């Protein structure tokens, strides 16, 4: 039964991150965050009408509110009176406030656990079961699998359209693609996925399952196909790691998975070949190589052919430590030689400066 929890988690992560790739590329991560908050209003309203937390109307109602959120944000920012980020910020909090108010006003009379809606608890997923073809499987797994399938079909069918509208919306519009259709179709699926995922991972963490794997993949690859593949790999990896850690320490599964996703991201961010650390090292090496080249270039000039330690140090404003490091390197590699406290270029140093001048077209 516990393994079913992992399955629910993985299917949620796959369904969300597949769409997340396009959300990241379109810069709609925070709009999705807004949706994942406002669907709560749809859930609350639909729940008050149907009084059944499992009703399919909840999904429909919540998705409609999700779409309405996107529409209102666009409407407000289209007036050009309010910037888009401010529009997102106040629209979703206002709708969220209505939801909280409804819940706090009527929560006494109904069985709607706010904590579960907001935080989700994937551990409870196996308790709600459904019989499909004679097999008893968790309801959440069944729902999310269908949604994963729909998302896969959508991305496969409209791959070209999604690609063009994500990377170059203006060209897509001129070339006759229906930008608005793809946009709203994507946002509809995002809303539906977010609603289905809410009782597994909670409405606040859903955004993590959408964007974290896609962002991690985005750091590593340039091609869309590769990015999608890698995103799905990270989605599974984060889920499995999060599940194991939370199981071992008895923590919230969704919360742990979300934080593991940040750690995965930071590891890739720091250590990948174009990442933070390697680019820092590269910069430092370039700086060193440049300083050394500058010393050699100075000494290739007529008036500076033999210099003392003090002359070099004052010319480049070097500290003793920097000077020793550079000079040691240059001496060992035989770019220069030392003769009674004066430094001079060797033949190799002369060649280096000669070719450097040619390379950068500097006057001799």
């Amino acid at each position: 039964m516990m393994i079913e929890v992992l399955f629910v988690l993985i299917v949620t992560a796959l369904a969300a991150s597949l769409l997340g790739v396009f959300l990241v590329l379109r810069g709609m991560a925070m709009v999705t965050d807004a949706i994942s908050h406002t669907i709560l209003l749809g859930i609350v309203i639909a729940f008050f009408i149907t009084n059944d937390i499992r009703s399919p109307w909840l999904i429909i109602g919540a998705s409609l509110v999700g779409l309405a959120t996107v529409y209102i944000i666009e409407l407000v920012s289209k007036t050009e009176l309010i910037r888009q980020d401010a529009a997102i910020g106040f629209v979703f909090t206002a709708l969220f406030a209505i939801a909280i108010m409804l819940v706090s006003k009527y929560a006494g009379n109904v069985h709607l656990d706010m904590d579960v809606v907001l935080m989700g608890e994937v551990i409870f997923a196996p308790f709600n079961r459904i019989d499909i073809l004679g097999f008893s499987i968790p309801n959440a797994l069944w729902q999310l699998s269908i949604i994963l399938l729909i998302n896969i079909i959508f991305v496969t069918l409209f791959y070209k359209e999604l690609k063009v509208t994500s990377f170059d919306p203006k060209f897509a519009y001129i070339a006759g693609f229906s930008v608005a259709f793809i946009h709203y179709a994507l946002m509809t699926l995002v809303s539906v996925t977010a609603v289905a995922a809410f009782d597994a991972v909670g409405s606040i963490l859903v955004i993590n399952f959408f964007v974290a794997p896609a962002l991690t993949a985005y750091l590593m690859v340039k091609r869309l196909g590769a990015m999608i593949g890698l995103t799905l790999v990270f989605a599974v990896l984060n889920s499995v790691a999060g599940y194991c850690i939370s199981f071992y320490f008895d923590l919230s599964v969704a919360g742990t998975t979300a934080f593991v996703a940040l750690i995965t991201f930071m590891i890739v961010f720091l250590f990948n070949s174009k990442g933070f650390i390697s680019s820092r090292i590269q910069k430092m090496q370039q700086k060193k190589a440049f300083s050394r080249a500058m010393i050699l270039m100075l000494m290739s000039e007529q008036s500076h052919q033999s210099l003392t330690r003090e002359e070099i140090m004052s010319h480049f404003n070097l500290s003793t430590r920097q000077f020793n490091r550079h000079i040691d390197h240059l001496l060992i590699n035989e770019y220069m030689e030392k003769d009674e406290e004066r430094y001079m270029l060797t033949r190799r140093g002369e060649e280096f400066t000669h070719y450097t001048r040619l390379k950068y077209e500097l006057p001799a």
Partner: protein
Amino acid sequence: MSDILTSYTFMIVALGTVILAIASGIIGTVSVIKGQSLIGDAVGHATFPGVVLAFMLAGTRDALTLALGALLLGIIAFFIIQIITEHSTITLDSALALVLSSFFGLGMALMSFVQGNPDFEGTQGLSDYIFGQAAYMLRSDVYLILVASGLSLLVFTLFYQQLKIYIFDPVYSRSIGISNMMMNFMILAITITLIAVGLKAVGAILIVNLLIAPAVIGQLWSDRFIHVLVIAGIAGAVSAFTGTYISTAANDIATGPAIILVLSAIVLLSLLFARKGLLRRSMLKRKVGERS
């Protein structure tokens, strides 16, 4: 009516929320004008693990301790966002979404650890920090809000000239020796402080509205920075007072959401009827059309 207005609970809560709303409205204006209003949202979520951690380490639910924890994690989240956006091609939008949800996840993981652990007692109050429980605000909470808001506004006034130049002309401000990074960090530090002390009043999610909506209202009515600030402060104060009154008068209406809804109503009205609003604009267009 006068019963409510003079009741002790109402006075405590109203004083706290009004002061908080004025300070948030004024400080939030800077972020909104700079196009960074959602950083407040991300930092607001990121304070959650800070609150839980502070509770775990200090073992108290003392407002100041929890606020310090919130402040610390908020600053860490801000720096991670800065590093990600500066050293990769990832946009601010995506970085915010990632950091916000991951930190919140950490908060949830820590929370589940605390709740499952018999060593910690009295955890009920913690989830209030997500939604806010203004009705349970204590005198000490209000003092904390007063001190933090007062300090924030003091710093804001002291650096007003530099801030103004930094906001509207960052290139010029750098050339006359104002450190843009310092200014940016100062605004963020003040914002995070206000979020940290405001958590109990309105909660981590709704405080975002308190930071953004007053500035939006101000911008709809005026183009002058000082006027925008004053209008934002007044709008925040009026909403906080009205919202608190409504929630006290009517049973079962939480204070945070009530304030936000009053504020949202003002935004909506301003959007339509303000000096720069939609109706006025369409009237202007018609006039221009008639003339030509």
